[in-house]
């Protein structure tokens, strides 16, 4: 479903990576590893259509796509390393706001279930400013069940999560893959993903 050909990215004068080519079929995940500054985030932002690659092309469902292509946007869930939360809003309001921005489910019942699934039931009326880093990250991840998207792009999703959180994350990704979705995950941590469905790419 997702295919890249000879992608290259530059930051200023430095070449971050070049000739990154891969093809992901429905139901597979690509785990991107590599040292800090090797271009993992840049690659994800290129795949999301936020950044223009210096070279190469990207295609989705067999058709080439350009940055901010509406077809790609309608099917992408991008969770960056900043969680896009507003300190003044409560956990529940933040989740509702993010889900509705992506045209997702925002019924009160579904929102509460999604927060409960990420162990945030007791925190739902607290403003995001008082939540811990891990809890803030969980609010972002709680979107998984509310917004239906074929392509998940996750930038360091396991950062600040505890073991239970990482297990939930892996379970959510595995369910997404089983459902025919595609995921690209940049991470330093080992994630327990179904080995048959996941591949890895190492940037240097």
């Amino acid at each position, binding site marked *: 479903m997702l295919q890249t050909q000879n992608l290259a990215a530059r930051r200023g004068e430095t070449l971050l990576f070049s000739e990154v080519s891969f093809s992901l079929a429905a139901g597979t995940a690509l785990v991107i590893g590599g040292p800090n500054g090797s271009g993992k985030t840049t690659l994800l932002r290129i795949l999301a259509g936020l950044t223009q690659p210096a070279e190469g092309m990207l295609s989705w469902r067999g058709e080439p796509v350009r940055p901010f292509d509406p077809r790609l946007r309608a099917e992408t869930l991008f969770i960056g390393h900043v969680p*896009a939360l507003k300190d*003044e809003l409560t956990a529940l309001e933040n989740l509702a706001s993010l889900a509705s921005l992506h045209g997702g489910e925002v019924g009160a019942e579904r929102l509460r279930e999604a927060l409960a699934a990420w162990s945030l039931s007791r925190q739902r009326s607290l403003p995001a400013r008082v939540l811990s880093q891990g809890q803030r990250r969980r609010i972002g991840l709680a979107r998984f069940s509310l917004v239906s998207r074929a392509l998940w792009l996750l930038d360091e999703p396991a950062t600040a999560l505890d073991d239970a959180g990482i297990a939930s994350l892996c379970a959510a990704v595995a369910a997404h893959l089983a459902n025919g979705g595609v995921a690209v995950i940049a991470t330093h941590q080992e994630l327990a993903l179904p080995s048959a469905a996941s591949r890895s790419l190492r940037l240097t």
Partner: protein
Amino acid sequence: MSAREPVVGAWPGVGWALGRDVRLALRSKAELGVQLLFYVIVVTLFPLGVGAEAQLLRALGPGVLWVAALLASLLSLPRLFAADFADGTLEQMALSPYPLAALISGKILAHWLTTGAPLAVLAPLLALQFGMDAGESAALLAGLLLGTPTLSLLGAVGAALTLGLRAGGALLALLTLPLYVPILVFGAGAVGATHAGLGAGGELSVLGAALLAAAVGAPAACAAAVRIALD
């Protein structure tokens, strides 16, 4: 998973951004109050500074009330996109199925409702300090109601262009204030024309036309600038 049709429709996008930004503004009331208070204080400094000579105050009034409105509108502009840019909301907005220009229109409308509109409503009260009569105050109110949304729209373009720059605030003022000049001239002119007994129809029409032009052009310009900032 089947291919989904992109969600189209700009109005839900406008509504999303408007609702969220108004709610955020109401949560941090202090910030709202600061801007209004700034306006009140700047306007009040002039009668205190130049003395209570009725003729002079009457001549100064329209200009002072408008210049202070421009400055007050600049006060909150740097935060218009910067907060969303820093916390990652802006990239989520750029990737949402709604057109980015629609989401930005909603943000600008919220900015006006929480800054420009209260200021316009307050202005006739402050006009009393300058000895303006009811007709002039009405022209002032009408001019500010038509002019302040244009200030928000033009300012938003400047805010989007200076996104992520160091010393963006000062640059923003330098970039935006010259664009505000026509609004200032016709806004203050509307009050002056009423005072001279000419009627403010012409000036208000120009302000209305400027608003329409800015409403069409500014959101698209902001969207383009935001995409460059995100790259």
